[in-house]
């Protein structure tokens, strides 16, 4: 059992209030995490400017190199954690034990984080659309096309109110430090592991510890992070997204409602895309916002649902240490039961059919955790309640909907993989503002190109581009330095 402190601008602070992080199967106490009271952050934020100052003392190119080194340390090294140490295997085991994600998926996520850190130069280049990085450092400069430009940081730190259930989200905040912006991390109660291991890797790689604070805590701490940080990223429900709509200080990552849309020109060959559909639904435990939660087509939907149920329905719950484990546990008591209750209620509606029912019970309850096995529904209309839902396990509704109504009916969609060769429809999809990431062609929803923005560019979120005019001589002189 490890005692993990609050981190106040790099300094450990032993809180008198602690929360236990529990192994979801054995009940073992994995760690005691010190809880910060909101007032600590309120006070520490008075020194937030210092976080950016210490980072600005280091050139971005050096910070990028530190990120690469940190990536290697994160993936391979034994690093300090609270009053103990943590090997990479410890990390995967602990993360699996508290979040319910199978261990091999935790290791896969480590590879993903490592990839992002190791390709930080390319990622920054793509996020800034090839901007000379010295312009970010200096705050102004001259673009390649000879036009002066200024990038003004909107906050000395980015606050992150992190979730417990999806270790994949951490890639979103990794470019922040090399952009010379400090970090305030409020970890999810069951996933303190990544923020603390990243902090250890970053500081061991040379990032000034004064640039990072980690404030574990409950809902009050999350609210404090939102109210104190000039820029903050949070993860939540559709309601959370609505609550912060129009608030430029807050970037909310809500449910994905990601979908595969089969065009009328290819739908008769739907079997060709069965693997792609199954992977989009099931891989990485179906927990991510980029996992598919809806397959939409104008015909053959009953057959598609049956085939997906046949393929994914039989998969059993396996021990999280089993390399074949594909399902993640629900570790919050009562959550799986409540989710399954909602699905059962939804299936009462005429036109909605539970297709995986014949492959055995879906809800499996254990002593300290529960599972829901892959669930496929068929909806014979896009207007049914279950036609547009998302849950944190492999779940998909196969929805019958005429192609010409799909764009309107799918609603907000993080990833749409539209399989079609119909360029007229592709053009309409390209214009659809309710779709964030658009894949045209036979691509799974979970296929990410790390060099492209995810739910908006973090550069645009953290920096404001603005006009900057000054005599040419001064501009040249300063930019030459």
């Amino acid at each position, binding site marked *: 059992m490890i005692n993990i402190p609050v981190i106040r601008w790099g300094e450990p602070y032993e809180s*008198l*209030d602690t929360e236990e992080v529990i192994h979801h199967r054995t009940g073992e106490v994995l760690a005691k995490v010190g809880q910060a*009271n909101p*007032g600590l952050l*309120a*006070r520490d934020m*008075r020194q937030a400017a210092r976080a950016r100052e210490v980072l600005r003392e280091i050139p971005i190119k050096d910070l990028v190199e530190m990120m690469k080194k940190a990536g290697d340390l994160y993936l391979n090294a034994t690093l300090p954690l609270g009053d103990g140490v943590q090997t990479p295997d410890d990390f995967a085991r602990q993360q699996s034990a508290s979040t319910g994600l199978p261990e091999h998926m935790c290791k896969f996520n480590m590879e993903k984080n490592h990839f992002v850190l190791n390709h930080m130069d390319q990622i920054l280049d793509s996020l800034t659309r090839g901007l000379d990085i010295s312009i970010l450092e200096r705050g102004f400069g001259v673009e390649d096309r000879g036009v002066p430009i200024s990038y003004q940081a909107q906050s000395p730190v980015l606050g992150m109110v992190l979730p417990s259930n999806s270790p994949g989200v951490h890639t979103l905040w990794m470019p922040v430090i090399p952009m010379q912006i400090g970090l305030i991390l409020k970890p999810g109660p069951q996933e303190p592991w990544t923020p603390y291991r990243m902090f250890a890797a970053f500081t061991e790689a040379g990032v000034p510890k004064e640039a990072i604070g980690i404030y574990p805590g409950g809902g009050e701490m999350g609210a404090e992070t939102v109210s104190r940080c000039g820029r903050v990223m949070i993860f939540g429900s559709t309601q959370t997204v609505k609550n912060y709509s129009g608030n430029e200080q807050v970037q909310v990552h809500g449910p994905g409602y990601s979908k595969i849309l089969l065009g009328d020109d290819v739908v008769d060959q739907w079997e060709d895309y069965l693997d792609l559909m199954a992977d989009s639904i099931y891989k990485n435990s179906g927990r991510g916002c980029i996992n598919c939660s809806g397959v939409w087509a104008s015909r053959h939907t009953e057959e598609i649902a049956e085939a997906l149920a046949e393929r994914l329905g039989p998969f059993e719950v396996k021990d999280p240490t089993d390399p074949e484990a594909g399902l993640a546990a629900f570790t919050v008591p009562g959550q799986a039961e409540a989710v399954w209750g909602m699905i059962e209620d939804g299936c009462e509606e005429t036109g909605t059919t539970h297709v995986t029912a014949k492959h055995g019970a879906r809800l499996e309850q254990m002593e300290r955790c529960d599972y829901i096995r892959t669930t496929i529904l068929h909806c014979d209309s896009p207007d049914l309640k279950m036609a547009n839902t998302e849950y944190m396990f492999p779940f998909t509704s196969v929805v019958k909907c005429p192609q010409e109504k799909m764009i309107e009916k799918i609603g907000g969609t993080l990833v749409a993989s539209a399989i079609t060769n119909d360029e007229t429809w592709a053009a309409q999809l390209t214009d659809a503002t309710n779709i964030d990431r658009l894949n045209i062609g036979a691509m799974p929803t979970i296929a990410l190109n790390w060099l492209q923005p995810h739910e908006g560019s973090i550069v645009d979120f953290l920096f404001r581009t603005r006009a900057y005019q000054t005599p040419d001589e001064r501009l040249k002189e300063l930019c030459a330095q």
Partner: protein
Amino acid sequence: MADLDIQIQEARAALDAHVAEIVQWHFSPETGCPFWLDWARDADWDPAAEVKCLDDLLAKFPHFQDEWLRDQQPEVWVPAKFKGKPFNIFETGGTTGMPKQRIGWEDYKIDYSEFSDTLDDAAFPRDHYWLMVGPTGPRRLRLSIEHLANVRGCSCYFVDLDPRWVKRLIKEKQFDQAKAYMEHVVDQATTIMKNRSVSALFTTPKLLESIAERYESEGSSLYDAGIRGVFCGGTTMDPQYTRFLCEELLENKIGFVPTYGNTLMGLAKHKPLTPEDKYSITYYAPQPRALMRVLNPDTNAPVEYGEWGRVELTTLTKEFFMPRFFERDEAIRREPIELYPWDGVAEVRPFGALTKKIVEGVY
């Protein structure tokens, strides 16, 4: 027998005698109030004759119902001996609907005069000025704090805070309005503090945080503003929060006196914090005038020392008798100490705080 054991026995004997005297008072027609005399008639037993000690009271009286303080007119609580004397009406609750009302004459003065004896003159200098930032209006606290200041030769400034309005704003998720109201209160408090000489502050923990933050954002501190003692109560103060207040806001330079009390019981005193306490605050009722027990809510039996249970209050004064009132708080039962040789309650928080969302607001 150890000294503490003797003290515990003596305190218990004093409590038993006090219980018998107070019950005799409230249930005798020549001294008692209409409410309790009627109640005894309906209950068909004679408390004046049958209650000779605390155990009798605990065995024979049911829990006091707070509806009685809402539904009955105030005069039913007037003991015969006080008839004709105008009384204070103090309120508690009332965020929605009728508040609970307790009447009184001298009790608050007795409670707070006794409390004054526990204050350190260095932190709460005599012949100076206090500021209360908190619920005034119909609350006993307003007169009590003024009396406490007066007893010490001080005068007191007041900034009002209406907790009913804050709770309503929070319940209705009007967080911006709640924040604006809090700012309004802090503005008034800091205006007094900047323009008048104030050494002692009574406020709630959250307002204390906001006032301190205001000073610190201006490069100053509560200490620099002249505050030497803070008397704080009203909401949960767990050990981490208490440590935060002492170390960060009060810089270990300002005296800190946490309190637990309410309109119905009076004011509990806290065990002076030592390093061994790790900022866990234990309160002791002003026995024998009031009694606090920590009970298992399912069995009504006292929990073991160190265990959590629901707080039960009993008030035993000639002005007011309130047996076995289940407070909406839970706490850890703590052992008697030499200073207060009877049970204490520690780390008080709203009952069910771990399982449901409680609206505490700034109060």
